């Protein structure tokens, strides 16, 4: 059975390794500071005993006051998973570091979030729309998007 690693366990490990990287630890997810995300994910992926080698998905939520980008990672070896979240507090050009250098699977997922939610992934090698056409304006999954 996949045990969701409790946020507490993760935080205690990450807190000592990356002081100041954790903004908030909920019951089932960890809120990570945007700049620290690649280092935290790299650590979760490569550290013995953690080995979160599988990126399940990347998605994003529009909470009006901020955007939240959500990442789910799984360790196939230990059958555990963890949810990381990153927040952007600006509506024009919200930016999050790209994970394409860590997981190849992040490529299309980040393009989808960019296309539909309008979040820029810094460092993505080919960040362009994936579903909608090139001339399309706006990002339809934003709550203030108007058809």
């Amino acid at each position, binding site marked *: 059975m*996949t045990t969701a690693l409790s946020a507490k366990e993760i935080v205690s490990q990450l807190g000592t390794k990356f002081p100041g990287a954790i903004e908030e630890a909920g019951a089932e997810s960890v809120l990570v500071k945007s700049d620290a995300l690649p280092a935290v994910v790299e650590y979760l992926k490569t550290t013995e005993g953690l080995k979160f080698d599988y990126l399940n998905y990347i998605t994003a939520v529009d909470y009006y006051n901020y955007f939240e980008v959500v990442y789910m990672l799984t360790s196939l070896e230990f059958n555990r998973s963890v949810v990381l979240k990153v927040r952007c507090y600006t509506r024009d050009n919200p930016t999050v570091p790209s994970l394409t250098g860590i997981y190849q699977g992040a490529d299309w997922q980040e393009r989808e979030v960019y296309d539909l939610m309008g979040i820029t992934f810094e460092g993505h090698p080919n960040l362009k729309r994936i579903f909608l056409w090139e001339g399309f304006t706006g990002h*339809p999954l934003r709550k203030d998007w108007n058809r």
Partner: protein
Amino acid sequence: MTTTQELTVKTEPFVLNMGPLHPSTHGVYRMRVTLDGEVVLDIEPIFGYLHRGIEKLMEERTYTGCIPLTDRLDYVSAMNNNFGYCLAVEKLASIKVPERGEYIRVITAELQRIGNHCVAIGAMLNDAGALGTPFFYLWRQREKIYDLLEMLCGQRLMHNYMRIGGVSQDIPDEFLPAIAKFIPQLRSFIEEFEFFLKQNEILIARAKGVGILPKELAINCGISGPVARASGIKHDLRQDDPYSIYDRFEFDIPTCENGDCYDRYRIRMEEMRQSLRIIEQAIK
């Protein structure tokens, strides 16, 4: 006398647009292929032609009103998409599904999985050059599955059968006898079908060692389902993080090791057998 020097032709890469292809060819899809003669140097996949904005449509519907949309996420596995959506809503609202409902859901989901694999294998064999014959053999089995699902909900393709908290109606009296008759028939069909194909030279030549997806790459790309298992990733949510009542059934998670087209065919044949095992346990 001509020298090798003179025979060397100066070439340059050539960009070719393939598609967009018609929907009946497994979705509208375009490739920008960079070629050097007959050698493919690079492919850029371009898709989204059939993106219907289902998430956006769901925003303005009630939770129940979204179920028919989930049918349309993937028309060859409508039931399983109903299932996934209902599970999510039930988790959010802490709704418990009656035991009988859970069993009916598992039976229908596994039937649909078999139907889905029939289409996947049939289409693959079609593309490998066996036009028609194996495809329609599998299609006939899938039709029988649709007969069964039609008994439940009156619909063959877009079932809209599951509801938040269960299913739309109980199974009719004729359903269990019909499914009991179907299982041995399908099982012997799988054996016969595999007997024909296992040593088929054309299939082996066109699928073995072709399109290899190594395990590490598959993990790194976040590949899931039968494709991942064909590349040797032993991961199946039904066992690793069981939803519904999958923890009550005994079944194996088959894996292959080469990750080529042939393995992706093999894994689906084996998963059909395992689905039959689950259905057999569930109808008891």
